[in-house]
């Protein structure tokens, strides 16, 4: 009787997960497998022949591939630590129940997350224009004498993209840290205070270790999103000057839809991104999990 009931429930259970699983299968796993098969073929447009690893070999000598890959990794390496540290710092400050105006601060700092990616990128392009407001403010404050061509210089353009990303996402990750902090038992801090721990000691010895899972989660989320960066760069710098800010996703897009379509090569490049994300996820899990 009991097993029969369980079977009946089990059937309902499977029927409930069916639709979602089928959709993920069709629109994630099938394209992923097709992309792999495609990455082993060469040719223009629909005219494709099997070519083994030729596409992957071609990548080694492709300077645009290395430039765009380098740019993407550079964004991740600089932007993510800055952003997560800022988000954590703000979250710790806002977690103090005695802090006045914390609701207003939280709302303000979260607000950038409501903007659409295309919109804020265009706003930043405008803010950082040669005769834009940022240049004027800096000149007015006598920090610089001459306008900096932010979006036109290959280094400044990268910096602007990083600044834009930090602006857009810090508040988002702050919310994750805030909710994790609220789950920490306040008495732990009181006990630490009684034992003579100062703010920094309790931060590094109590808060940070307890937040480890959420730091891991947020860094994976940030990493996968930065490695797929597209909207911002397209609308802020269009990848320029030259290829100075172009990301790997943009290059994949260009290879498939802007140049003479070479689907096979494009798929091969996208597979490198896929592998990179998987490897980084495993490595990061190793690092965050090892100190125990």
């Amino acid at each position, binding site marked *: 009787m009991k097993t029969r009931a369980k079977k009946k429930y089990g059937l309902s259970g499977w029927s409930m997960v069916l639709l979602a699983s089928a959709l993920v299968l069709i629109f*994630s796993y099938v394209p992923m497998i097709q992309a792999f098969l495609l990455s082993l073929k060469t040719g223009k447009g629909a005219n494709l022949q099997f070519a083994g690893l030729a596409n992957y070999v071609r990548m080694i000598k492709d300077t645009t591939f290395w430039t765009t890959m380098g740019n993407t990794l550079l964004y991740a390496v600089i932007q993510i630590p800055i952003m997560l540290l800022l988000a954590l710092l703000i979250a710790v400050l806002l977690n103090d129940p005695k802090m006045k105006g914390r609701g207003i*601060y939280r709302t303000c700092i979260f*607000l950038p997350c409501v903007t659409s990616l295309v919109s804020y990128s265009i706003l*930043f392009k405008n803010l950082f224009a040669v005769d834009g407001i940022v240049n004027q403010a800096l000149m007015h404050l006598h920090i610089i004498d001459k306008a900096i061509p932010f979006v036109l210089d290959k280094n400044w353009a990268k910096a602007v993209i990083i600044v834009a990303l930090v602006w857009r996402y810090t508040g988002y990750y702050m919310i994750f840290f805030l909710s994790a902090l609220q789950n920490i038992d306040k008495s732990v801090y009181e006990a630490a205070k009684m034992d003579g721990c100062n703010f920094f000691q309790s931060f590094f010895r109590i808060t940070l270790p307890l937040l480890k899972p959420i730091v891991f989660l947020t860094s994976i989320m940030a990493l996968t999103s930065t490695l797929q960066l597209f909207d911002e760069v397209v609308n802020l710098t269009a990848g320029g000057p030259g290829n100075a800010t172009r990301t790997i*996703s943009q290059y994949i897009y260009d290879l498939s839809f802007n140049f003479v379509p070479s689907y096979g090569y494009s798929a091969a490049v996208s597979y490198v991104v896929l592998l990179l994300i998987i490897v980084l996820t495993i490595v990061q899990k190793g690092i965050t999990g090892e100190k125990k």
Partner: protein
Amino acid sequence: MRNLGKIFKHLFLILASVISVFPFYWMIVGATNESKDITMGKLTFGSSLVKNVTNAMEHADILQAFGNSAFLAVVITVVSLLICSVAGYAFVIYPSRGKEILFMALIASMMVPFAAKIIPMFRMFSKMGLLNNYLSIILPAVGAPFLIFFFKQNTHAFPLETIEAARVDGLSEYGIFLRIYMPMMKSTYAAAGIFSFMASWNNYMWPLIALQSEKKFTLPLMVSNLAAGFTPDYGMVMVGIIISTIPTILIFFLLQKAFVEGMVGSVK
């Protein structure tokens, strides 16, 4: 000494808040100014709002794009919440070894970068004759692994005794989900709804590929087009940006509490 620390904390938070909010002020002021005043950094309100709005309406069918985006976001949000919540629920309420493996596979698919799927997806939809059709936008968006994960996480806080009680009362398994789980998990739905709506509203790369006629364009595509070129009319662009920001800002302010509650994963 303690006061000094307090002042520093506030100064830091004020600075962060001002930087966060300034671009919003900038776009609102910009929408009321002439393009050349915007580039010159005019920080006060002007009188060109009506002109900018009319320009934006004439040069690009902003209203049409707004309607398109709204339609897609609402459909995707409703359908994805239904499909993903029932799945997340089932993973917790009817646990089994097979489902555990399936769940891992669904989560693993979150690692697949979108760029790795665009060519096969483009070919898939072109074969089906669905390019430039909204089904090509809706179908890939409604089975969202993150939402399944989100609902699974939040379902752990759902009291199992309620289910037992409902079974005794003779409710079917789907009945329990529809009549008890869904009303009880309102804040989770609100938060997940915000995630889903935002993802759809902001979606750029795939619509850029899948939608070809300007009539079908979503707001991000339209705004991006407005701002392209060497000398865009920034007054017009600001209007476009504001129009694309208003719905998300409204939803955020109206559902802010539910949003934060949902993030923490509490069930009231």
